[in-house]
């Protein structure tokens, strides 16, 4: 029966494995941050465009009101 084989004394390998796994987590986190930043900016654009539309509609309404004749009951009839 052979004696148990002595284990290979690993040197830099396990440390490199630890560094790689740490980097994998960092990169995944950064990818998630990129996705989140895109969504936040999408929403911010949506809100800004909605505000622009409201302003444009308000300006158009004001222009219509400003150009229409003011009818005073009793005086202009």
């Amino acid at each position: 029966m052979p004696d148990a084989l002595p284990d290979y004394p690993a040197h830099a390998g396990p440390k490199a494995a630890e560094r790689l796994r740490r980097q994998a987590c960092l990169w995944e986190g950064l990818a998630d941050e990129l996705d989140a930043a895109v969504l936040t900016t999408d929403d911010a654009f949506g809100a800004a465009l909605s505000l622009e539309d409201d302003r444009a509609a308000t300006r158009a309404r004001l222009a219509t009101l400003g150009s229409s004749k003011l009818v005073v009951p009793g005086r202009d009839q």
Partner: protein
Amino acid sequence: MMNSDPHDMRIAARTSEYPNSATEREATRAIDKLVFDKVRSYESGVTRSADAFVDRLLEPAREAADIVVDLRDELSAGLIAHELRATPDVAKRYETLRRTAQSRAAELREAARHARWRAERCEDPYGNYIQLIRTFPALQNR
């Protein structure tokens, strides 16, 4: 020169007949050293390759972090605070950043998957070396 499976050689060294225990100790030590030197060389190679892989991703990761800042702190915050308006120029800038962000995110996720695969190679250099030699026996005499 090794012509058999390195792990099996180590086992064989311990099951062979020797004239005395000193000779047996010497023979098993010599075989272990031969195999361990090969594994050490393999381990150095995979860890150097892993370091180079991580270093290659430093700049893309830095650029990705900059894009997050541009999107979140410049565009998004500017729009929310009404310091920026949704003009065609701003929309064009956003479109460029958005496309780059999505591309970088995919690249980083792929890099993370690859990093985990490399980590398995690095963590058990002996086991991975033996597996490599069993798959490609011609490599062990390199």
